[in-house]
């Protein structure tokens, strides 16, 4: 049956059905089902979050000053960005102003997270969708060295280096303990890189693994410890004391020097390894421009990295804020997270219950009440679903909408908005990358474009990190060492009933927390996370979300090895741990691909 969605997509679920469950190399659990036509082109896509979420309800009754610590535990990758969103929400509710240094240090924390997450995503979660590890074993180390030296001045590129690395890789593969390489579709025709490019990429996979551990030391300097840094409502937890020596929780000269050195290496690695690799890989895949989905139609960013403390307006935010709808790239709308008619969550296709499911609810009025039921056309049992019925409820993720529109969020959304706003720091790198690859602007709206935007954003973030650090050092030199405003620390200084919103741009997209505080305790807490925006199911009007839209019209070479599906889903850097919770029985982690 063919169906037209209001947001401009054509769906046909009559062809062969492919089920991928769970989707691997993501945080959390998701399942995707697609229908392909006679030519194996995807004509219908169904994205299901297979986990139940309950963060909102476990925070009820807790001290709002502690909420960040709970949100930091939701998942294994978004620790700091949830914590930052949480303290901002509480400060917004209680009207707490933070000092300039606290704002800068938080920006440094957030930009560090962006750089770390983007590098880890590209090399350790996404590269294997483009890079064939097994093919790297047949590369010629000398030719690999020549390739590497032709695209970058990065030092580690001799034939001997690649030969050693290839031997290590061989031993690793022969040991049988493949670890992260075990679920690859090695040898798939969708891999386009020559063996030498594969070997170079695997080498950088390991170098990035080695380097990422240093990046996060910045979090330990400003947050006191890793891997769970401390945060503070009213500012930042670690005092600045330039005279201190060795004290664990102080920001002093020695630690600032450490940070300075790491930032320089972030810039160096991004410029000389990440970006050259990205462009080299892209040059082999520039004919594979599937996966654009909503990116050319409807994108959303809340914005982040306030240049001025306590100013969360668009003019202060260095990561752009705005909404583009209906494919009209000539207009960027302002976004208000508190307006009742802007951000709303719908549940007509989610396993939750509202009194009236034809309407959406603003997060201040959000309801999280489970209602698990399969539609009449579902196959299998309630605990072993063989096939989802997307006509009914089919996901543990809600469907957030901005003024009724399904939106894509993330680095590509941010770059599209910055580009349309003619901000040179976003427009120029995009134009340069497109020129280098010899592709038109429309190529940006693709899986590859999403992956490229993340790399360009990493480069931007590394430089902004350096600028923010310079501002911090200048403030300290000028004698300003204030890091926290504790005037409203104790609950007796708070109004009895308040509410507030905090937002950030997490590496994977727009993140918001909405909190209500009654008599000093959390009365309600709602989060809308990036993967809810991108991975949510259809709404009651039939609009499809970003994951489903991006999968459409993509040819799948071998339905039993859906590399193309994983490639596009991974390009969003999905993270479902906070949007949903695991339900697979026996803790099974093996992906099964079922073709019906």
């Amino acid at each position, binding site marked *: 049956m063919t169906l037209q969605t209001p947001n401009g997509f054509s769906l046909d679920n009559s062809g062969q059905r492919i089920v991928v469950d769970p989707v691997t190399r993501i945080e959390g659990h998701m399942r995707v089902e697609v229908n392909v036509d006679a030519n194996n082109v995807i004509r219908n896509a169904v994205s299901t979050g297979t986990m*139940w979420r*309950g963060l909102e309800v476990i925070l*009820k009754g807790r001290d709002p000053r502690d909420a960040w610590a709970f949100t930091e*535990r939701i998942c294994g990758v978004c620790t700091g960005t949830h914590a930052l969103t949480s303290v901002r929400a509480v400060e917004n509710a209680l009207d707490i102003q933070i000092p300039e240094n606290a704002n800068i240090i938080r920006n440094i924390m957030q930009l560090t997270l962006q750089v770390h997450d983007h590098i880890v995503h590209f090399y350790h979660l996404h590269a294997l969708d483009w890079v064939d590890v097994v093919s790297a074993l047949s590369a010629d180390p000398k030719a690999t060295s020549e390739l590497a030296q032709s695209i970058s001045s990065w030092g580690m590129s001799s034939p001997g280096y690649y030969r050693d690395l290839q031997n290590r890789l061989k031993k690793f593969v022969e040991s049988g*303990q493949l670890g992260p390489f075990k679920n690859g579709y090695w040898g798939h025709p969708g891999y386009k890189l020559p063996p030498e490019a594969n070997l170079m990429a695997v080498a950088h996979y390991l170098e990035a693994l080695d380097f990422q551990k240093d990046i996060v030391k910045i979090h330990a300097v400003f947050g006191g410890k890793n891997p769970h840094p401390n945060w503070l409502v009213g500012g930042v937890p670690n005092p600045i004391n330039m005279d201190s020596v060795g004290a664990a929780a102080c920001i002093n000269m020695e630690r600032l020097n450490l940070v300075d050195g790491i930032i320089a290496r972030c810039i160096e690695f991004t410029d000389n390894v990440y970006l050259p690799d990205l462009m080299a890989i892209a040059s082999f895949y520039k004919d594979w421009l599937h996966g654009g989905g909503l990116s050319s139609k409807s994108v959303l960013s809340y914005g982040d990295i306030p240049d001025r403390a306590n100013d969360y307006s668009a003019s202060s935010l260095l990561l752009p804020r705005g909404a583009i709808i209906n494919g009209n790239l000539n207009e960027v709308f302002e976004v208000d997270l508190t307006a009742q008619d802007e951000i709303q969550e719908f549940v007509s296709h989610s396993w939750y219950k509202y009194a009236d499911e034809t309407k959406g609810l603003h997060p201040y009025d959000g309801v999280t009440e489970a209602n698990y039921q399969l539609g009449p056309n579902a196959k299998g049992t309630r605990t072993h679903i063989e096939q989802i019925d997307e006509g009914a409820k089919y996901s543990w993720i809600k469907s957030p909408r901005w003024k009724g529109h399904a939106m894509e969020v993330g680095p590509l959304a941010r770059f599209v908005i910055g580009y349309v706003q003619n901000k040179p720091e976003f427009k120029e790198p995009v134009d340069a990358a497109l020129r280098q690859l010899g592709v038109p602007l429309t190529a940006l709206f693709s899986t590859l474009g999403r992956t490229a935007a993340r790399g360009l954003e990493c480069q931007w973030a590394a430089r902004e990190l350096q600028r923010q650090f310079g501002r911090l050092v200048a403030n300290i030199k000028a004698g300003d060492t204030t890091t926290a405003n504790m005037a409203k620390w104790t609950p007796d200084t708070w109004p009895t009933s308040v509410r507030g919103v905090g937002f950030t741009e997490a590496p994977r997209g727009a993140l918001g927390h909405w909190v209500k505080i009654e008599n000093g305790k959390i009365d309600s807490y709602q989060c809308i996370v990036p993967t809810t925006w991108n991975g949510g199911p259809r709404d009651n009007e039939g609009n499809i979300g970003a994951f489903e839209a991006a999968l459409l019209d993509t040819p799948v070479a071998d339905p039993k090895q859906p590399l193309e599906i994983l490639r596009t889903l991974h390009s969003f850097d999905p993270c479902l741990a906070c949007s949903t*919770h*695991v339900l697979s029985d026996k803790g099974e982690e093996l992906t099964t691909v079922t073709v019906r």
Partner: protein
Amino acid sequence: MSANAVEGRVLILGVGNILWADEGFGVRCVEALGDRFAFPPNVTLLDGGTQGLLLIDPMREATHAIIFDAVDFGGAPGELSVVRDEAIPAFVGARAMSLHQTGMVDVMALSRLLGWQPDALTLIGVQPVLLEDYGGSLTQEVRAQINPALDAALSELARWGVAHAARPAFGEDADIVTPALALHLYEGGRPSAEAACRMGDERVLAQGGLNGGRAA
């Protein structure tokens, strides 16, 4: 290679997600160990949470490591097991941890790929009773294994030649875990089942858990 842990670096790591009932076992063990005992400066106690790749670095720095974790090794619910060295990957491989499904087995594989060769590695694991209880804490069976798990760790350390001393009964907390998440505060602040909407869905409650789970 240092044959003796006295000269090497010792890591005592607790992993898992405290928000998921028995998943919090590893973190609660290292929290309790830090609260009750003091160790020489070459011993690091770490609440690793579910931070996958971020654990590679502390792992690589260690010549001797003890990992506390909730592990599905097919035993009876609440059963404690101590597994050493080469035998470990087969066990932790049974369950992915969290970071983008980078479980401990991947963390170890990646650490080895980067050249890590520990002198000694010991996993102290408990078979979880219940995981599917978001915001919940350890079950009685698993909680009862904290003391035996600490005893197992201390005897392992003694075997390696690492000393320990009891902390003063009312001494300072070691703050291994963020204070707001300390076990007693975490459990004391939990809303009721009604308030927290923990009822009424068989996929969440009846069927959940590795061994058939049950509602809290």
